[in-house]
Structure formats: structure tokens, C-alpha cells
């Protein structure tokens, strides 16, 4: 696997960790999504309490050329509040399921954040000047007695301490009966899609009272329901193309030019089942938890419970590459079904848009995360833990011992902590900086700069 010393191999070092140190995790602090913006300068996290925290990278310090800028808190705001659905007598969770950034068009930054039912467009803007020298008001806001005004002056802008304000600009509500699992901004930067368990809607960013339903897999008779939508994404370059994955391990590619309701897919990606691995859990572990296009748009990556698969868009009948994330769990599926871990939805991500390097990353249990290098076919397992928090010290690769004699420094499968799961990871769009979310902490790692 990737280790220290390889010429082109990345050596990952701990950089920062954000979040509470306590082992006692507050429910609201559980991180539910992580996303870099298009420049990588901003890093957003959403949590179960409905809050969004945005970190900003410091400008590079010329004197400290051996490390990149640190990420510090830039803005924190409450994106979603808990709601109550009177009709169903059920709570609507405020947990942020996804955050997606819009490309920057002016001084302000925009992002979409969504919970189970409502998507919101947030504007994050800076204020570092304020007007001073009003004629009718004092500096503290009190009105001056007009009779005391003897001269007139023009108010001027004076610098002030930086204030970052977040304000909701659009609220896209009431379009989803089921729980939203994905949002994806189109390459036209004007529209976006939102997907729930059974339907996908197309929105215009300016219009909140209307959305178009483009996929509907709800059966007429709900008793016949056997498959749900698990993730969806727009193609990075083709603004009429999107994909959605299902709980049965299929991916459908749809073209919106074909018809208004894209119920007929243009392509269906599905790998035939391996009969030797068949069990009662086969379908559950084939359920796709995440789908991501490559930067070029030629490939897409899917994550199911045990593996990461790379698909060539031109080949529907099988993936071009399959990487086993934690195959040692295959013999433990019954226990993982019993404690519900088998339903954990792991995400996956591509490295930044470096044309030479092709690495994919995904999380696992015991706060382990995995990287697979598509070029060298090597892989590595690393751990996000406060014990390794010495900056510029290369992280030690980890290994899980599936069976037999456990070597020194290896961890046996039975010792893995299944409560410590890494579901969300993100890779800086341009540099080798990664953000890895454990239950309530955010770790930032970067490659060792020489």
C-alpha cells in the first residue's frame, strides 16, 4: 500500500482538528456533511443541530513555506430549525443532509443547504466598512437635536472589524414528500436538482414557488415499493445529463432533453451479482450510498457498503474498477444488520482536479479512512485520531487483521469500534488537503511539503 518513501506517493500529515474533545458527543454536534467551495478557500460543515460552520483558509504565510494556511472559523449560522408536520404528527429533523457551494460570481459567497424537506440558498457576505459622519444621528444611533446642527458633512466609509453575515436568500420548500438525500447544482449555474427517496425535482435558483418533477419512481401501489433513490448528481459538463443511484445497486443516467419526466433512463449501470457471494444481505450491501462524477465527467464513482466502484460512462454492464473498502466485514454482516450499521451511508470523493493524480477516498469504521490510487493500484488506510496530532508528522498506515494471527500494530476486526464511523470526507479542489469528519470532529490533513 502507499507508504512513506514513494516518489509520487502523497504523505499525509495531520494539520488541524476542530470540535469538542469530550468523548461524550452532543447529538446536535454530529457532523452530517462536509464540503469545500470551488476555490478551496472555504470549508463548510453541517451538523445534526441544523447549524452550518464555515472555515476559511488563512492566506499563505511566506515565512512558513512548509505548510499551507490553516482553516479558522469564518461564519457560523443556524440554517434549519426543527419543524413539526401536523398532518403526520411527526418531527422534521433540522439535520443538514447536504451542502453545495455555488461558484463565486461576486464578493459574496452562496451555498445551498438542505435538511429532509427544505432547501435554502444562503448568502455569506463580508462587511469591513461602515458609514460614519451622519448629520442627523450620533455614532451610537441616537438622533441629534436638529437645532444643534450647524454644518453639513458627507458621511464616509471607515474600516471596521470584519463581520461575516449569512442571510437566507431563497427558501425552496414544500416540494418533497419524502426525505431529501441529494442536491446537485447544474453546470449552467442556474438550475439545480434535489432528490428524495422516490422523486427528483429540478429547480431554478431564482424561483422558489415552482419546481419540475423530473424523476418519479413511486409505484401506484405503495405495497409494490421495492426500490428507492439513494443519491443523484448532475454531470459536471453536460447540463442536460444527470445520474441517480438506487437501493438495488443500479445507476441510471438520464437526459432531460429526451422527455419532461425522465422515467426512462438513457443508460442503466448495473453489475451482475456474484453468485458465490450471494446471501440474504446481498441486496442491502449493494445499495449505493453515494455517486460522484469525476472532474472530466468521463467516469463516475459509486459507494456501496463494502466497496467503491469506478464506472466508465460508456460501459453499462460492469464497473471498470472495484476497490474493497473493508472486505473483512463480509463475514460480519449479520451482526452489522442487527446493530443497523449495515445501513450506514458512506460517502466517497475524488482527489482535486490534478490531471496526473487519480485517487479516490472514502471512510470506514474505527475512524479509519481509505484511499485508492487508480494509477498505481495501491491503497492506504489512515486513522483520524487526536493521538496522531503532531503537525508535519506523516500519518502511520493502519491495517486490519481479518483472521488468523494478528501482527503487531494490526487491529483485529472484533476490536473495531463501530460507533466511530467516518461517513463524510472532502478533498480540496486544487491542493492535497483533505477534510475528514468523525462523529463530531473535523480533521484536516495535508500532504507533507518538502
Amino acid at each position, binding site marked *: 500500500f502507499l507508504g512513506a518513501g514513494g516518489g509520487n506517493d502523497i504523505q499525509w500529515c495531520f494539520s488541524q482538528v476542530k470540535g469538542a474533545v469530550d468523548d461524550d458527543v452532543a447529538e446536535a454536534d454530529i457532523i452530517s456533511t462536509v464540503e469545500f467551495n470551488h476555490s478551496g478557500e472555504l470549508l463548510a460543515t453541517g451538523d445534526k443541530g441544523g447549524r452550518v460552520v464555515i472555515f476559511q483558509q488563512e492566506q499563505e504565510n511566506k515565512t512558513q513555506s512548509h505548510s499551507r494556511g490553516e482553516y479558522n472559523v469564518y461564519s457560523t449560522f443556524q440554517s434549519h*430549525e*426543527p*419543524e*413539526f*408536520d*401536523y*398532518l*403526520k*404528527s*411527526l*418531527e422534521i*429533523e433540522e439535520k443538514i443532509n447536504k451542502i453545495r457551494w455555488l461558484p463565486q460570481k461576486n464578493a459574496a459567497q452562496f451555498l445551498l443547504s438542505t435538511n*429532509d424537506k*427544505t432547501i435554502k440558498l444562503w448568502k455569506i457576505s463580508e462587511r469591513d466598512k461602515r458609514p460614519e459622519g451622519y448629520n442627523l444621528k450620533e455614532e451610537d444611533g441616537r438622533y441629534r437635536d436638529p437645532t444643534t446642527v450647524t454644518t453639513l458633512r458627507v458621511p464616509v466609509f471607515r474600516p471596521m472589524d470584519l463581520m461575516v453575515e449569512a442571510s437566507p436568500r431563497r427558501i425552496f*420548500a*414544500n*416540494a418533497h*414528500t*419524502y*426525505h431529501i438525500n441529494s442536491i446537485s447544482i447544474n453546470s449552467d449555474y442556474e438550475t439545480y436538482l434535489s432528490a428524495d*427517496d*422516490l422523486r427528483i425535482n429540478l429547480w431554478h435558483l431564482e424561483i422558489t414557488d415552482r419546481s419540475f*418533477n423530473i424523476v418519479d419512481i*413511486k409505484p401506484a401501489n*405503495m*405495497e409494490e*415499493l*421495492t*426500490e*428507492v433513490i*439513494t443519491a443523484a448528481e448532475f454531470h459536471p459538463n453536460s447540463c442536460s445529463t444527470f445520474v441517480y443511484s438506487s*437501493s438495488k445497486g443500479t445507476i441510471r443516467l438520464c437526459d432531460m432533453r429526451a422527455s419532461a419526466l425522465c422515467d426512462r433512463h438513457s443508460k442503466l449501470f448495473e453489475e451482475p451479482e456474484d453468485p*458465490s*457471494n*450471494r*446471501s*440474504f*444481505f446481498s*441486496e*442491502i450491501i449493494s*445499495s449505493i450510498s453515494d455517486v460522484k462524477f469525476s472532474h472530466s465527467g468521463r467516469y463516475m464513482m459509486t459507494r456501496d457498503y463494502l466497496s467503491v466502484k469506478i464506472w466508465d460512462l460508456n460501459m453499462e454492464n460492469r464497473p471498470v474498477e472495484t476497490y474493497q473498502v473493508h472486505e473483512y466485514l*463480509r*463475514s*460480519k*454482516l*449479520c*451482526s*452489522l*444488520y*442487527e*446493530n*443497523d*450499521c449495515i*445501513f450506514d451511508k458512506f460517502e466517497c470523493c475524488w482527489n482535486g482536479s490534478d490531471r496526473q493524480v487519480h485517487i479516490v477516498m472514502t471512510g470506514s469504521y474505527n475512524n479509519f479512512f481509505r484511499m485508492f490510487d487508480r494509477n498505481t493500484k495501491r491503497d492506504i488506510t489512515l486513522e483520524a485520531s487526536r493521538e496522531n496530532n503532531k503537525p508535519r508528522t506523516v500519518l502511520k498506515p493502519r491495517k486490519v487483521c481479518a483472521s488468523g494471527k494478528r501482527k503487531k500494530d494490526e487491529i483485529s476486526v*472484533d*476490536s*473495531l*469500534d*463501530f*460507533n466511530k464511523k467516518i461517513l463524510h470526507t472532502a478533498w480540496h479542489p486544487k491542493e492535497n488537503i483533505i477534510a475528514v469528519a468523525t462523529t463530531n470532529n473535523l480533521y484536516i490533513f495535508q500532504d507533507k511539503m518538502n
Partner: protein
Amino acid sequence: MFVRGLKRKCFDGEEDIEGTLAGFKAIPSYNLQRQSLLDMSLVKLQLCHMLVEPNLCRSVLIANTVRQIQEEMTQDGTWQMINTQSTGQASLDRLVSTDILCRSSRDQAEGKHVPAYGTFSKDFESDQAQDSSETMSTAPSVQAPRNLQSNVWEMENPQENKGNFQKSLDQIFETLENKSPNSVEDLFSEVDNSYYDLDTMLTGMISNTKMGHCDSLETFSSPTNTASNSNCKSDLNDLDHIVEILVES
């Protein structure tokens, strides 16, 4: 949760048995393991969160697993054995209650369109057809099993009577659409006059909780159903709970 290091008595480690579905019937432990997986799955389906809508993907995957087991057991011939067991009225009532307990994503409305209540029974359809201004009268005299409704939140026992397995599976699926008349009546037994007075009163406090399907409900006329009024008092606890949530937000 998963206790570190604790060995579980389950399929784990016995890949051979998991590997082939058709063979190995001669080994009694396979049937036992399959049965325990079936029981586990049914428990998972029935233990639904009270306040938050259960995860539809998870429910569908578990239901598919149950179906798989059921199909295999049917092929086996073990299924017939189970179905010949007697079914009692009492267990049927329990089915209904777990049906209500498990209401996951009931399809209340199709976005902006006419609410789906109309599909539940012919009575509703005719009512809707008559009312051009979209006012809807509530359910005809409700024979709601109120004691069942109040007991629902305590009801957590897994399905014991296998004889009703097929029925329970159907009931569970029906909750996803909520087509059974019983649960529809229960739905409307909650919806009474006092409920909507409270709603109107508190509209000012709730900025974000306006639901799309409320478009039609806002024009609800006062229900002429006197039976539901007698159930008001039992709803007060629900109302208190709602008010509590609203006030806190």
C-alpha cells in the same frame, strides 16, 4: 450497539451456509438462523421512531429481506406449516396497531395537486367532487379504536403469531401508502375542530412550517362530526405536546 469483542450467535463466520440458498436444508440450524433473521427483520420494521419519520430506504431494504426469506420458505415448504396456525381476533387488532405505529412516509399529498385523501375511500372522492371550493368534510362517523390509538406508543412487542405473517407484511406495506380504512379513520380522528383553532391561533408563531398540502386544509369547514368532539379531551395531551414544541421554537 455493537459491543466490542462480543461474539454473536448468528450467521457470522458460516459463509458456506449463507452462500447457497437452496441447499443445506438438512441442517436444522439453517432454518433456525433464517427464522431468527426473519424475526429480527420484523422487529426492525415494527420498531419505528415515534416522533421522527423512519428512514424509507432502510424500511424498504428490510422489507425486501423479509420477502426474500418468505419466498425461500415458501419454496421450502416450511411456509405452509406456519400459515395453518390459528389466527385470533386479538392478534389482528395488534396488527392494526402496529400498522399505525409503523406509518412511515404516508403519501398525504402530491405536491400542489389535489390531496391524496381522495384515493383512500369512495366517500372522500364524492365529497371532493361536490366541493368546488376545495373544502372537505371530515370522515363520517368515526369508529376509531381510541384505546388502540392510545396504546399504540407503548406497543413494541414483535409479532409473535406467525400465522398472521403474510397479513402483517401487507399491513406494513399499506402503511407506506396508508390505504386501509382503519388508519384513515384514525388519521381523521386526530383532525378535529379544536386542532385547527389552535393552528389558526398559532399561525403567527410559525413562520416556516407551512406545508404545501395545507393549501386545501386551510379551508376546512368545521366538521359536523360530533363523535370526534368527544375525543377532544384525549387529544389534549397531543396538543400540549405540539404547543410545547412550537413555543420552544
